[in-house]
């Protein structure tokens, strides 16, 4: 009996055999799993549903109608108002976020890949030391670095600039770590040897051979970094004062802190928050195939 239970998950679903109790056990555990997953799905989706519903409501109906169902459908009017408010500063914030997160993640991924690859494939003195320092970097939360970064940028009069948010964003210790592990396991030395014998330079080998083999890891790093930069709130909060440089997170927070003064802004905060998650959803949907492949490849090897 106990053996059937422990073995059950390993059985292929097509061939249900074993003792008489087994199908029931399976049904029970499957139902339990479904319930747990259903509850957690609800748990994660209800806030987004609320956000969507609230985005479609006019300000008058926002507090006076049921929170989780539609009133009059004003989504497009709301979006138009949001975009027009304060000379369209919201669009500027969205563009900034896409710029910080998009180009930051792209460069960050490139650097992490090169660094991780070098640490995995070349032997040189101090290699472990460098890797350990990078590992140490993984342990320090980004929030703890924001203030030191502010003071450093102050020395160069570079606070309140695009670079003050962008430069710290292209560094990803976790990316280096991941790239090293992945390169070590998925880029065979023999292949590099062959490329070198064929006369390819090290740079070319990296970009034409290794990069392709590392693609799943690179997509993972890119997504992680994209989300991290998009959600990074504390660094821009400390660095930026010019609202045309704000990313959308800081902009919405700023508006939200003015709600008591100007209640009209509340609608904009909600619709703005709703629109601001769309780029993240797009990034995930379009890249998740690679991501799944990446995690799988790493684990099987």
């Amino acid at each position, binding site marked *: 009996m106990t053996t059937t239970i422990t073995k059950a998950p390993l059985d292929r679903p097509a061939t249900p055999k074993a003792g008489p109790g087994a199908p029931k056990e399976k049904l029970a555990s499957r139902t339990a799993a479904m319930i747990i997953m259903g509850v957690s799905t609800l748990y994660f989706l209800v806030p987004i549903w609320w956000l969507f519903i609230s985005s479609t409501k006019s300000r008058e109906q926002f507090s006076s109608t049921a929170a989780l169902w539609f009133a009059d459908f004003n989504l497009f009017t709301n979006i138009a108002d949001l975009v027009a408010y304060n000379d369209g500063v919201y669009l500027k914030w969205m563009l900034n976020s896409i710029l910080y997160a998009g180009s930051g993640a792209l460069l960050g991924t490139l650097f992490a890949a090169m660094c991780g690859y070098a640490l995995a494939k070349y032997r040189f003195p101090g290699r472990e030391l460098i890797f350990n320092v990078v590992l140490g*970097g993984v342990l320090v939360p980004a929030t703890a670095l924001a203030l*030191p970064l502010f003071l450093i940028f102050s020395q160069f009069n570079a606070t*309140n600039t695009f670079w003050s948010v962008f430069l710290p964003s292209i560094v990803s210790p976790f990316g280096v770590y991941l790239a090293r592990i992945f390169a070590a396991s998925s880029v065979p030395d023999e292949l590099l040897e062959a490329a070198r014998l064929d006369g390819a330079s090290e740079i070319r080998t990296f970009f034409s051979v290794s990069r392709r083999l590392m693609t799943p890891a690179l997509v993972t790093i890119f997504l992680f970094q994209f989300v991290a930069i998009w959600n990074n709130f504390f660094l821009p909060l400390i660095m930026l*004062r010019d609202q045309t440089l704000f990313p959308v997170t800081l902009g919405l927070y700023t508006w939200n802190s003015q709600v008591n003064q100007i209640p009209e802004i509340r609608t904009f905060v909600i619709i703005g928050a709703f629109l601001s998650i769309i780029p993240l959803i797009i990034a995930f949907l379009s890249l998740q195939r690679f991501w799944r492949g990446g995690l799988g490849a790493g684990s099987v090897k």
Partner: protein
Amino acid sequence: MQLKNSTRIAALGIVAAISLTGCAAGSGSGSTDGAIDCTPADGKVEISYTSWIPGIDKVVDLWNSKNPDIQVTVQTGPNGNGGTYKNFFNQLSAGNAPDLGQIEYDALPNFRVQDGLENIASCANVSESQDKFIDWTWNQVTFGEEDAVYAVPQDTGPMAMYYRKDLFEAAGIPVPTTWDEYAAAAAKIREQGGYITNFPQNDVNWFAGLVWQKDGSWFTNDGDAWDVTLTSPESEEVADYWQTLIAGDLVSKVPAWTDEWNNAYNTGSDWTWISAVWGANSISSGAPDTTGNWAVAPMPQWTAGDEKAGNWGGSSTAVLKGSAHPYEAAQFALWLNTDDEALTMLNKEANLYPATKDGLTLPVLSEGVEFYGNQKIYDIFADAANQTNADFTWGPTMTQTYADVADGFGEVLGGNGTLGDALATGQTKTIAALEAAAIPVNK
């Protein structure tokens, strides 16, 4: 060996990060230098101004078009406690603070104690402007020091009572003019199924406004050390009064600024709100179905026949330490907060209520307001502004005080302890916080 190595390096990294943060947090405190030398610069000057007032850029544009030699750049951010104050302190220690910053009255002592403000008393027209401002606001920006002006008052939040005129009339309940009548009305309203108002856990500065009305104060500073008086007799009487209402279930426990709270006003289950002038918009936007049913009356009094009001909120424009152009900064701050055109714009854009005596009679503030049945509600707030006690003092650690008292209020609303206990805890913790920050305090 390898593991040892990596842990050691990681530990080093963390220590470095912490010590850097530590350096930044500590900064000079409490130097008492006199007024700065304040002379105009030659030629064109650019100054920066950080404020979270919505639409402030339009007002600044007006100034810039009139003053080609003093160009102001607006910088913005979240409201003070939402991050801008912390940013000011970071920038002050890094030496790149803006020339001017918006600072609320309850945060000014913190900046003063940490030496973040320039004394602009000697700048032209500044000290001379004292008579233009409502008396209590001037005390807030001078801290009672001789030859000192650390900021220019910007706006105020005189308090009054918003009430549902229609409901009071229909129920035959007289509009309360004293706190005793207010408590009696609360009981009658409760019989009808409503609440007279809610007791907000987190609006501790609202509670301070009530103490202010009773001529109490939470802090005093004799020039050498601070006295913390959260448990003064006035403060405790206010606490006892509301404690009785809470214990009798005569006020609701709905948290302020939530949908539930808006809804209570929109559906008529809450009947009054003792609030500041800027609250006029909070009700009209939160309770749109009740247009025309509201009115404003002076705050209930502790003694019948008195005319006293409290204040909730308001901010100032301060010249921050290290400004290269204090003269120009001061001139802009004076214009921003005294010029009729600027004050009118600030009122239209952000509902700011002027801190000047003349500002109270601006045309925009003399009109009837539709939501309040076309009542000229600002007349009542103008009276309240002049009836506000000039001697209320904020302490240097208000964020901490608010948080600790709010925790205590939360306990009370949950059924434990009394508001008096909450104030006593706030008192103890505030003294501890002042001592921890090496700020002299009398025990």
